[in-house]
Each structure stands twice: as structure tokens, then as C-alpha cells.
């Protein structure tokens, strides 16, 4: 699906500067400016940062912001993808293309390996998901590479527990979040000092809303995986939500598969990410749809519906 224009990644930097030689005043986008500031603080304050890349729109936005923060240098840290094995194939193809264009290092660690090593046990049955299993694989990867800062695309508007998250969020040796004992964050004075064994989760787009992300993607003409746009897909309906009829998604015999015109609002593990009916085939239409929407983005995430404090519990255990 050719929906977006040529990506800026492929433009020769020198050519770009000459053709964009403006004589104007730089217009400020306060959220973008804040995110770039945070990226630079991470690289300056930590020895080995890494960007957690899921292939979703938020992490793709992070990549563009990182490009902006360090230009004309390349992005000075690798991307880490925790692969649940239940990815949308479109996302993986997109990921590999992006990494190649940017010339950055991609590290992939597999939840399947954690299962095979007996570190986690796969959930079974109707609502089985590998989403919470990711935490173990993530913590192991952070330890393996001695990453001291993991940059993520979580936003405070997503969920109530995330609304209390800091920009620099300190985690202990076990990756745990001590929500009642968080460091105060004042002005732009970001404190990244940590003790041995601790690491930090960093959230540069904390203050963005879902609509902010989409508006930015549209304005910047950032390429995103095709599953974010309306497409015909084999699906079935359970508990009022639309699920992709793939092998990775458990399906009862009486759950009927039908082709529907759908798109995804978040790109997580296939087994816990529901689709929405949509005919939005362009970024402009997607932005319009989000603006008019009355259901929150995580309303389509079954993992949050397990209990009212589902996210808080996962975060205490090291989920990002």
C-alpha cells in the first residue's frame, strides 16, 4: 500500500541542507522540543542507552525525534525489539526496512527463547497472551547488554498508572517500579544519576496524546506500517471486539471468521490487540477518526481489561 511520500531518511543530508536553506524563524512545537531535549539528556547522562522499538507508531515517532536530536550525527544508540513471536508480519517487514535506511544497529530478543529456557510459562486458552511474558525477555536483554537507560514510547495519557510515570523513571535490579517513592522532577533539571544495578526507563513523549502522535506523523509524513490503515482482513468477533484470524490468536470453533474492513490503533502482540472497523486509508483520515473517537486507544487492549490495576501491577514487575 503506497500511502506515504518519500521518507526523509533516504535524502542525502548535504542536499537536504542546501535545498532547505531557510531564511525564516524556526517555528516551535513545544512537545517536539521537549522530546528532543530529553533524548539529548539521555545520551549525555548515560553510558549505554537503548531505544525499545516495537514497530508501533509511538516507537517510530521516537526514532524520528532521535534523528532530529542528533542530526547530522546518526542515532547514537541501538534499537531493541522484544519479539513475542506473535507480530503482525507487516510490522517486521517495516522494522527491517527502517533499520536499514537509518544505518542503526537492531537487536532482537525472542520471548520464545525465554519460554524454551523455562523462564516463563506460556498462557493457555481463550485469552492467552504473550504480552506479560515480554517483561522477562526485556529484563534479560537489558542485563545481557548492560543497558543503563531504556527509552520507550509510553505516554501518560494511555492509562492511569502511566499518568504518574516520570520522564526518567528509576528501576531497581529487578526492573521494579516503586511508584510511591519516585524522584521529583523539577523544571528541565533531569536527574539521571543511578547506583550500580539500577537502570532508568526514559519516556520522551510522556506528554503527548494519541492525537498528538498522529498529527505529528501526518505533519512529518513519517512512514508507518500498513496495518494502521484500513485494509480487508480475516477477522472474528469476541466480547464485542474484532480479532485478527491468525494462527497466533486462539479461536473457538464457533467463532466465525469473516472479512472486514479494519485497521489497528495500536500494534502490540497479535493475541491481545484488537482491530477497529475503519475506512481510513490516509493519515489525514486516521487523524480525523482519532479526533472523533469516543473509545480510548487502550480500550482495544485486552491485557488492560484483566483488572483495574492491571497496568500498575505489570509496571511494578518491570513492564515498560
Amino acid at each position: 500500500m503506497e500511502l506515504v511520500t518519500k521518507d526523509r531518511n533516504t535524502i542525502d543530508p548535504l542536499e537536504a541542507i542546501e535545498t532547505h536553506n531557510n531564511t525564516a524563524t524556526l517555528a516551535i512545537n513545544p512537545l517536539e522540543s521537549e522530546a528532543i531535549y530529553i533524548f539529548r539528556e539521555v545520551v549525555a547522562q548515560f553510558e549505554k542507552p537503548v531505544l525499545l522499538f516495537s514497530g508501533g507508531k509511538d516507537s517510530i515517532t521516537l526514532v524520528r525525534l532521535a534523528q532530529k536530536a542528533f542530526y547530522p550525527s546518526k542515532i547514537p544508540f541501538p534499537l531493541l525489539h522484544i519479539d513475542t513471536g506473535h507480530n503482525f508480519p507487516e510490522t517486521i517487514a517495516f522494522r527491517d526496512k527502517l533499520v536499514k535506511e537509518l544505518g542503526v544497529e537492531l537487536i532482537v530478543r525472542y520471548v520464545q527463547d525465554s519460554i524454551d529456557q523455562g523462564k516463563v510459562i506460556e498462557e493457555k486458552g481463550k485469552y492467552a497472551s504473550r504480552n506479560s511474558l515480554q517483561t522477562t525477555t526485556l529484563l534479560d536483554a537489558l542485563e545481557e547488554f548492560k543497558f543503563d537507560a531504556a527509552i520507550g514510547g509510553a505516554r501518560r495519557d494511555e492509562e492511569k498508572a502511566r499518568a504518574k510515570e516520570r520522564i526518567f523513571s528509576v528501576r531497581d535490579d529487578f526492573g521494579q517500579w516503586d511508584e510511591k517513592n519516585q524522584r521529583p522532577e523539577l523544571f528541565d533539571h533531569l536527574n539521571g544519576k543511578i547506583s550500580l544495578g539500577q537502570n532508568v526507563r526514559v519516556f520522551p513523549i510522556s506528554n503527548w496524546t494519541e492525537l498528538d502522535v498522529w498529527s505529528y506523523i501526518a505533519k512529518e509524513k513519517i512512514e508507518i506500517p500498513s496495518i494502521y490503515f484500513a485494509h480487508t482482513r480475516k477477522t472474528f468477533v469476541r466480547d464485542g471486539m474484532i480479532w485478527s484470524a491468525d494462527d497466533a490468536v486462539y479461536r473457538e470453533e464457533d467463532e466465525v471468521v469473516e472479512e472486514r474492513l479494519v485497521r489497528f490503533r495500536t500494534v502490540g502482540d497479535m493475541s491481545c490487540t484488537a482491530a477497529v472497523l475503519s475506512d481510513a486509508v490516509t493519515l489525514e483520515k486516521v487523524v480525523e477518526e482519532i479526533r472523533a473517537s469516543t473509545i480510548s486507544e487502550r480500550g482495544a487492549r485486552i491485557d488492560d481489561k484483566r483488572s483495574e490495576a492491571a497496568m500498575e501491577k505489570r509496571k511494578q514487575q518491570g513492564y515498560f
Partner: protein
Amino acid sequence: MEVLKIATAGSVDDGKSTLIGRILYDTQSLTTDKLEAIEAKSKANGFDYLDFSLATDGLVAEREQGITIDVAHIYFSSKTKSYIVADTPGHIEYTRNMVTGASTSQASIILVDARKGVIEQTYRHFFINNLLRVKDIIVAINKMDLVDFSESIYEEIKADFQEMIAKSEYKEQNITFIPVSALLGDNVVATSENTPWYSGNTLLDHLEGLEAQDVYEQSHMRFPVQMVIRPKQTHFHDFRGYAGKIYGDDLEVGDEITVLPSLTTSRVKEIYFFDQKFDKAGRGSSCTITLEDDLNISRGDMIVKNAERPNVGKQLEAKVCWMDTKELQPGTQYFLQSGSNRILAKIKGVSGVIHTDFSGEDITANSLKLNEVGNVNILMSRPLAYDSYTENKISGSFILIDAHTNTTAGVGFVK
């Protein structure tokens, strides 16, 4: 779109979270699934009304106790603005969270319970907003429904509050009083029929009328260098850019600049933002600049305009708000961090604890406890470029980092 950052402050049960929930509800910012969750929970708790505080109290402990413990960030938008609300706890032991919320906000809503009027905590809330020089203060006199929407009670509270303003140090704040009922919605988004004696704006209308600016306000240009960008690629072999955020005022190509603390001078050659060059960049922009001359500049240095030099020195006096359970004691070492600059520092002395009810200070105190504000004298191991907080909020403020636990132990406002 403009982004307006607001903080809220109030005592326990003043209805702060309810007020925010009400704004979200009345501006149709609550999505169906969130609203359904609130309805279900309100019903389960046996309420015959919607408990909007459920929209913001995010942690399990908070929902159990029905209070706000930590700063929660809430987002909503109107046709003209995006709003970011830092909802902060009212309990005295969470004063540090209130300071945190106010530090990144341009406006503050202080809640007063109409039945209780101006109480000790109101003094403290206003004191902090005054200390931090938050520009716009909205005093929401809440629970008007419980005092029969009485004009005389509203006027009494307003008079008490004004008495407090008269005692404050910073008098240039814009202070607005609004009678509201967060629970029933009076004067929050819709004009109330119960307050015919009130001719002012509703809370949301008032917020809509504020000009969204960054919290750092107009001042002298300050450019703290975050990092040096040296790509060492063929195209940019000799490129040496200084990455940072511009505070206070515009920066233009050709500006004569001084680098601190070295006092070397040069001129701005280029201003980059990603792959584009600009002649001028406004305050608030994160850009990368190059200079005409090859200077030795590193992270922590500050670039300023020649005619607008700040103070440079190894000693400063500041008002410090203490945020750690471990007391601030003279002789102790901390890291002082202002923007991108982190310097080993030593507390020379504490010369008094300031009463947060505007009744002066206790000059006999020589240490600072959690949630106290005091006058502190600090010695640094290297010279720091700084302004007074009244002149410049970014170069006039700093945090103190505990050298052992690495926690942010306090925040300082340079005198």
C-alpha cells in the same frame, strides 16, 4: 496547537480530582470506556453520583484511600488549546509533589473548600505558587453548593485570600477568584444559574483566555549546552555543533555571544533544526548551533549574548525547598544540577526556615527537614553561571542530588 500547562493544589477532600474529572466530563474528553469504568466503580462504591476523581486517581493505594498521592498528568483539549494538568496531592507530606507540579506549570488552580475557607494548607499552597512565581493563579472556591451559593461567604474567603496576597513577596501574579461546584458542575465549564451575583468567567473560559507560553517566560537568552555534536562523516567532517534548548529570548545568526564560565566570545554562525537551517530561533526550541570560531565548549557550559552576562561564581545563596527524608545539614556534599550542568557542592550553612504562612522565618534553625523551605548558602567546586530566579527561571533554579542515594533531595531558587 498551543500547550497550556496547569497545576492543581488543594487540601484533602477539597475536591481537586473531582474538579479535574468534571472538566474532562464536560469537555467530552472522557472516552466511553473510561466513562463506563467510572460509572461501574461509582455504583460499586454505593454513590448515587459519578465519582469523577476515579478518572485521575491512578494508583491502587490512592483508590483505596480516596486521596491523590503522586502527581498525575491529565490531558484534554479544547478547540484552541491542548491542556496538560499536573494534579498534585494536598497532604502536607506531599508538598514536594506540589512543588514538582508547579515547577513545570504556567498556571495553578488553588482549591478552597467554601465551608472551611482559607486554612493553613491554603497558605502553604499559595506560598509555593508565589515562591515559584507561577504567573497565573486561579482560586477556585469549591463546594459552593454546600453553602447555598452564598455570595457573602465567597466574598469573605476572597477577602481572606487577598489579605494573604498582601503579605506575599511576588505581587505580579494574575489572581482570579471563581465560585464553583466541581461535583455539580457550576461555573466549571457551564455558567451557573446559582451564582447570579458572579459576573466573571467560568473556569474553562478563563483558561481559554490565557496566553500559553513556556513556564520559563521572557527573559535574557540562555543556551545551556547539552552536548557537542561531531558527526565525523564525509559531508560534515569539520562540523562542530552545540545542541541545547533556547531559554528566555530569541537567538539569531550573527549574534555576539559569550561562553561561560570560560568568558570566550564568538558569533552565531548557523542555527540548525534537523536538516534545515534558520536565521532565527525562538525561546523553547531545541536546536543545534555552530559558531564562527573554534572554541573549547563542552556540556554544562552556557552560551549567552555579550551584553547579557549572568553571574559566574563558586558561591550562591538560595531558597531551598527540601524533598528528602534525610535532613539538609551544613557541611554535607551534594551534586548541584542546573540544566545540563552538574557540580559537586557543599552546604555552607542554613540561615533560617521560612514559615509558609507568610509570618516570617525561624532564624534559629540550622537544618532543613522534609517539606521545609529555608535560606541556604552553597559552595561549589567549580564556577557556575547563574541568574537570580526572579530574572531567569532556568538559570536561577537547580536541584540538589544526594551523593550517596542519587535521589533528588531538594530544589533551589537563587536569590
